[in-house]
């Protein structure tokens, strides 16, 4: 029985436990730790995007008590390299990522996500503005969980500009913080 971070992909969606592994934001609606089949193309002009990655907390097993007070943050420093960024927004509903595989994902915006109005809670912001001293509050809680998701989703997207270099970027770390009365 444990807390998990899961990445949601596909129509189902399928939830992949990424608690103990990394997940790569490529130009495909799939989780991989090191996939190179569908990288994001460096654009000749403008910006290309990864497919957006929907992540959410999951309680594996059953627990007696409450989990609440969810926060999300980064280390505050973008080390992805020149021309590469990371944006995030909270979502109330899962929406499958779309785009052109191996080229670019559809830009994450309120209009492009889900119902186009309320499914994405806010306009995406630079993920690195959310730090341990200024975390993003994630709404939601669960009491007596039984193999279930809880809290809002956090949707991530990598942005790639013309000045980006080809190849894999360094990894970045995101952190979820939760309080639990389940010991």
């Amino acid at each position, binding site marked *: 029985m444990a807390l998990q971070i899961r990445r949601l992909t596909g129509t189902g969606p399928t939830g992949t436990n990424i608690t103990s592994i990394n997940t790569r934001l490529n130009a495909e609606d799939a989780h991989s730790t090191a996939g190179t089949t569908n990288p994001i193309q460096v654009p000749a002009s403008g910006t290309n995007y990864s497919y957006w990655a929907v992540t959410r907390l999951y309680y594996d097993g059953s627990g007696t008590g409450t989990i609440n007070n969810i926060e999300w943050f980064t280390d505050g420093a973008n080390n992805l390299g020149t021309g590469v960024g990371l944006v995030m927004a909270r979502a109330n509903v899962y929406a499958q990522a779309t785009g052109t595989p191996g080229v670019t994902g559809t830009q994450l915006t309120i209009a492009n996500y889900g119902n186009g109005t309320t499914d994405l809670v806010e306009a995406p912001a630079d993920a690195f503005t959310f730090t341990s001293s200024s975390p993003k509050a994630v709404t939601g809680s669960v009491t007596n969980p039984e193999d279930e998701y809880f809290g809002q989703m956090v949707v991530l997207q990598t942005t790639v500009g013309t000045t980006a270099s080809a190849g894999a970027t360094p990894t970045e770390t995101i952190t979820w913080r939760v309080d639990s009365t389940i*010991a």
Partner: protein
Amino acid sequence: MNTIVWQANYKDGTNLQHFKDDKVSYADIDRSRLESFSFYKKGKRIFTLVLDEGQRLIFRKRSFLSPGKPQIDVYLIGWQATINGKNIQAINYIYPDGVVELRGAFKGKDPLFGDIVLIEQEKNG
């Protein structure tokens, strides 16, 4: 073997024990009779909080999860009390290495030392 995680000790000498993965909940503690609260690690008692009159128990597991990194759990055990109309807190932070740090009031949105969201039983005493 199922190991004990915490024990609520009542004024009349009885107690409520919570074992890992059992159905006894923190919300089940009878706060009107609570005298002290003991926390165990690997079945061994490592910390006991003795409550004075008017002090209300707070207990949380505060977890930090990052993909590809070990989960970090910090246990918060302390009390809150209303003194002259003001909510006062004293919270012990028990770190994974066993070090205990005693702090006062919660620090806003700070991920480690920030506010908790009270459950119903904590609001009522």
